[in-house]
């Protein structure tokens, strides 16, 4: 009975958090889907998003939700920049090259970030209230973050399916060579996709910063979570990522009800490997 109770109290939180995890993973999985690159600079970008909120809210006093717009634009620009500097040359090379290229971007950001911001934690003391729902407390920041995550997902969906550049992205995802033959400027589309993926990572980081303390290394944990989520939902499937995020959020909420919390990562990564083996296309992916 106590476990059921605990489960019910932790579940809403897990779900809300899951949307934000999903948003982060969506950035990773979008890039993978379009260009088959696993972006190892994903984590530091999330961390930069967190610092974005810190500087905009604490230093400039602007509401973090308005600040999201700036962070999104900066994220997009940064992603395009990273694409042309580090990724474009190795886009057709073996996986190892693009993995290492994005990893070197990771090292550069972490190195500069550590020198400039240190690795001590930052805290955004921001609150939009909370309310009780049955036996559990729902935190306003998490609720708003989940809503924003859903809005971004919806926006991405509309962009991909209703706009011209979005349709180009889907065309390049399907078959880059054929898309090029149809006159789609593939380099620009690839850069745009990388920019969008980076933007999603930065935005999710900015949201996470409103409820957890963080430092420049914090992104690493969310990067690993994004891998797990990406695989759960099927790499390359942005909507799947949102569902994968929900699954992970719920798991993190309910596992502690049944065993010691320190087992959470064992289960998470165990599940990750099992899914890769059994259904590498993800829970929702079509059989290849």
């Amino acid at each position, binding site marked *: 009975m106590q476990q059921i109770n605990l489960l019910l109290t932790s579940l809403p939180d897990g779900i809300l958090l899951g949307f934000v995890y999903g948003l982060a993973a969506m950035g990773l999985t979008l890039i993978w889907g379009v260009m088959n690159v696993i972006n190892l600079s994903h984590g530091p970008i999330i961390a930069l998003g967190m610092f974005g909120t810190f500087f905009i809210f604490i230093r400039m006093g602007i509401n973090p939700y308005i600040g999201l717009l700036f962070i999104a634009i900066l994220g997009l620009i940064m992603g395009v920049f990273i694409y042309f500097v580090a990724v474009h040359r190795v886009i057709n090379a073996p996986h190892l090259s693009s993995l290492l290229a994005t990893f070197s971007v990771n090292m550069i950001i972490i190195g500069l970030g550590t020198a400039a911001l240190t690795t001590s934690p930052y805290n955004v003391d921001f609150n939009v209230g909370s309310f009780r729902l049955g036996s559990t407390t729902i935190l306003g920041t998490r609720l708003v973050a989940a809503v924003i995550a859903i809005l971004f997902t919806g926006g991405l969906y509309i962009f991909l399916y209703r706009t011209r550049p979005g349709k180009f992205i889907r065309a390049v995802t399907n078959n880059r060579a054929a898309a090029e033959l149809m006159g789609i400027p593939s380099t620009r589309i690839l850069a745009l996709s990388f920019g969008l993926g980076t933007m999603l990572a930065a935005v999710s980081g900015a949201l*996470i910063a409103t409820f957890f303390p963080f430092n420049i290394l914090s992104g690493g*944990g969310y990067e690993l979570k994004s891998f797990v989520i990406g695989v759960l939902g099927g790499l390359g499937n942005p909507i799947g990522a949102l569902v994968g995020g929900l699954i992970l959020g719920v798991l993190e909420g309910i596992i502690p009800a049944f065993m010691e919390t320190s087992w959470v990562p064992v289960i998470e990564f165990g599940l990750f490997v099992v899914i890769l083996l059994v259904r590498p296309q993800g829970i929702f992916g079509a059989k290849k």
Partner: protein
Amino acid sequence: MKRIFFVLTALLVTFSMLLTACQQQTTEPDEPQQQATEEVVSEEPSSKEVAVIIGFTSSLTGSQEVSSKRQVNGFTHWMNQVNESGGVTLSDGTVVKFDYKTYDDESNAERVQELYTRLITEDNADFLISPYSSGLTSAASIVAEQNGKVMITAGAADDDAYKTGNTSLFQLYTPGSLYMASTVDMLVDLDPEAKIALVHESDKFSTGVAEGIKPYLEANGFEIVLEEGYASDTADFGPIVNKIAGSGATVLLGGGHYNDGTALARALYERKIGLKFVYLLVAPADTKFPELGDAALGVATSSQWELAATHTEEEANNLGVEWFGPTGEDFATSYEAAYGDPPTYHVAGGYTAGLVLQKAIIDADSVDPEAVKAALNAMNLFTFYGGIQFDTSEEAHGLQLAHKMVVAQWQKTETGELKRVIIAPADVATADPVYPIPAP
């Protein structure tokens, strides 16, 4: 064909030599450091000044960064003070001045032995201070042992590191297994019926502290209703807080380091689960902790040293123990003047590491490692930081015996500012404990 091959091998060999030599910039490689010190002496026989080099690694990056940096500041503050006041004069007229050499160990075990070996053989360090964490200290202590160097440990609270049969470690901090002892003593008086949740970071230090206090809690008749470890990089403490609430605990003892401690305190506050008392390791002792705002209110920690409860010469006289060094107030004022923030216990620890070494050199009347080691083994001292006496048994050489921790709590002053006050032990307390913590 063959010629190309030979040229190539020659090139490769020189290349490899060059590369490794690059990071060397060796002075005489196989000259023992004893000679180097003598050289300094013989060069300037008139002034008879000896430069003693103290070597240590610190964690400028990685999880231990905040605490480690403060400790280094405390140490350099001591060194500057001693050197400005003319160093230590030995009975034969030799003036000992101090210098230090440090590297970043990145909180990473891979290089710590290499760096300490380098400190000893290349930088001619005469004495060593330990890295911040227990794991790194165990690794470094092997190097210290093999070279017969004294290593003062500041940080490295874990008991295990001393139970290795070493002869070179000397611990300044209260051992991990006794970290929470003074808090438990206080709870016995306040609320013997308290139900305890032990929720700690799942790492070497915090698990050691939690395991160490369990028998003591049970001996005092407390019921432990929840015992739980959480992964070091946990950010979402929601499920854990819910679990604490579900266990019926009234008192939380636990935490880990700075990052997780702040996150846990914040989650506890946001969820308002109505604990009577919250004790966390390490994090609340830091001056940055009140950045959490109201979430910091009522959170307690034990501290190796607090300015408000600093130890005095009078205490030393009552105990009949020798007093050494500045008063706590003098130390705090001069430190704040030099570094801009009030000292935490890590600062005091770094400072005392130097102070203890200074005293041992005076006692030994020599900078010879063996003589200093003997002086440290015999030491029974009282400073502003508290009592200092080392375990000299073979099983746990170097464990700190005399030093006692105080319990500090973040409370609100009348003006509404957050302030850390001492709530136990009663003889040094500056305020009554807030118990239970008022609901936010």
